[in-house]
């Protein structure tokens, strides 16, 4: 039973939130010409680390705002909560972001040249 500090509303019970799974997934556009297999990485593959995990949450029963969270999937420690569109600042969060295989996917590569952010990182 997590106690989550909503960046806007303060600490609230886990039951007020919904979890949106892995954060920082670049969404490919139809025009990106990814192969079906590369597109499948975006559609189906989700990181599933044992340890630090960067994920998206929404304060569903409160302000309805999305935010990012760095959470340990073993200890359930919440290391960092940070806004959509940002990357983590904590050491553990940064490492989790940098080390994820997601950084090497075709979808992410395709998303980068576009100056407008097209990723689930938000703008």
């Amino acid at each position, binding site marked *: 039973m997590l106690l989550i500090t909503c960046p806007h509303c303060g600490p609230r019970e*886990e039951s007020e939130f919904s979890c949106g799974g892995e954060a920082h997934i670049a969404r490919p556009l139809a025009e990106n010409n990814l192969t079906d297999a590369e597109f499948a990485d975006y559609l189906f593959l989700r990181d599933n680390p044992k340890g630090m*995990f960067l994920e998206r949450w929404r304060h569903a029963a409160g302000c309805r705002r999305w935010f990012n969270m760095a959470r340990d999937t073993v200890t359930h420690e919440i290391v960092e909560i940070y806004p959509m569109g940002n990357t983590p600042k904590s050491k553990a969060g940064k490492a989790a972001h940098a080390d994820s295989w997601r950084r090497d996917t075709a979808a992410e590569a395709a998303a980068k040249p576009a100056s407008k952010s097209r990723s689930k990182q938000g703008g």
Partner: protein
Amino acid sequence: MATDQPDRGLRGLPGGKQKYSAFALAKKAMNYHQDWQCAWRDAPPQSEYDVVVIGGGGHGLATAYYLAAVHGIKRVAVIEKGWLGGGNTGRNTTIIRSNYLWDESAAIYEHAMKLWEGMSQDLNFNVMFSQRGVLTIAHSEHELREMSRRVHAIRLNGIDSDILGPKEIKDFVPIINIDQNIRYPVMGGFLQKRGGTARHDAVAWGYARAADDLGVDIIQNCEVTGLRRNGRRIVGVETSRGFIKTRKVGCVVAGHSSVMAAMADIRLPLASRPLQALVSEPIKPVLDTVIMSNAVHMYISQSDKGEMVLGAGVDKYNSYAQRGSFPVPEHMIAAAVELFPVLSRLRMLRHWGGIVDTCPDASPIISKTDVDGLYFNCGWGTGGFKATPGSGHVFADLIANDRPNSIAAPYALDRFQTGLLIDEHGAAGVAH
């Protein structure tokens, strides 16, 4: 799907181990049970095996057993980090059924059902497979329609399924509340009479004993630390007890599949989530079947010991902690009391959590990988226990022949690239 009886291979204990029977019990009682053999040897790891199965749960042990019993592969090791059956095998609500909607699912679960039906005799170990029926309740017009779809499909797949009305349900389950004015009235249900429950630990122990009898080495307290490859070919496993050479590795490590896959640089489309269950204190029998309800999100049965066994769906976020969130049991219990008011004065005795690996389509992976000789069997979500024998049987076949049979083929990893999913999500609601 396959209708033929699955090849059950060598049955009983051809290796010559002491057999279990009422007679044996009586005989051993004479000297106070002092000379019962070990159910399985505590084998030290040898330097090389034909096949190494990683994971000593029900699926892994069944795989090893069928490798030996059906395919005659005797140099097989099962490597387990902790103790046999310590993962989801010993943490589920023991429900067995094969009344699935999609043909691919019906095929593998029915394959398993047929193996369940002879398991105690095959293994000479009473796994207490109790075909007391699994009754799924519909609480709305929408659910009645879904139920009809499901029952028609199940029946045309040659699997038993009967539709019951509220009155028949009440006769079958006297403690159920069929008042039509409640929030989720019991409007109907469908029953698989061949469904039921089994004693979960016994499944692991029974397979372990029978596999051991056929020469399989069962190695507990041995952690895999790496998968050694030569190019794209597996050549062995690194373990906490040394390197073991092998050209075939079957990974069956529910709850840790992603971690194991990462050792071979493979990514699996899995999410590891807690699945919670609980039991009440034991009471005299009041519920002699299994009841499932998607709308109120709960399933329940009464164990032979008398405990009411309750489960529900998986928790909402990833975790490897074998612990879930309190609203899940809270709701599960409210739903049980709503459906069976008499349970109000019972008490929760034990509560626990497992870690289930779930695929985006809520169907498992039984597959070869990009690495030659490395096979994965995972992603069973909440359906793992009931599939145990079928899963082990087809996985053994895949490993032995290096190609999937018709039952396993739809469960290959490449479905996530093509998008040809076996989408039990849409239809499953509450899985288990």
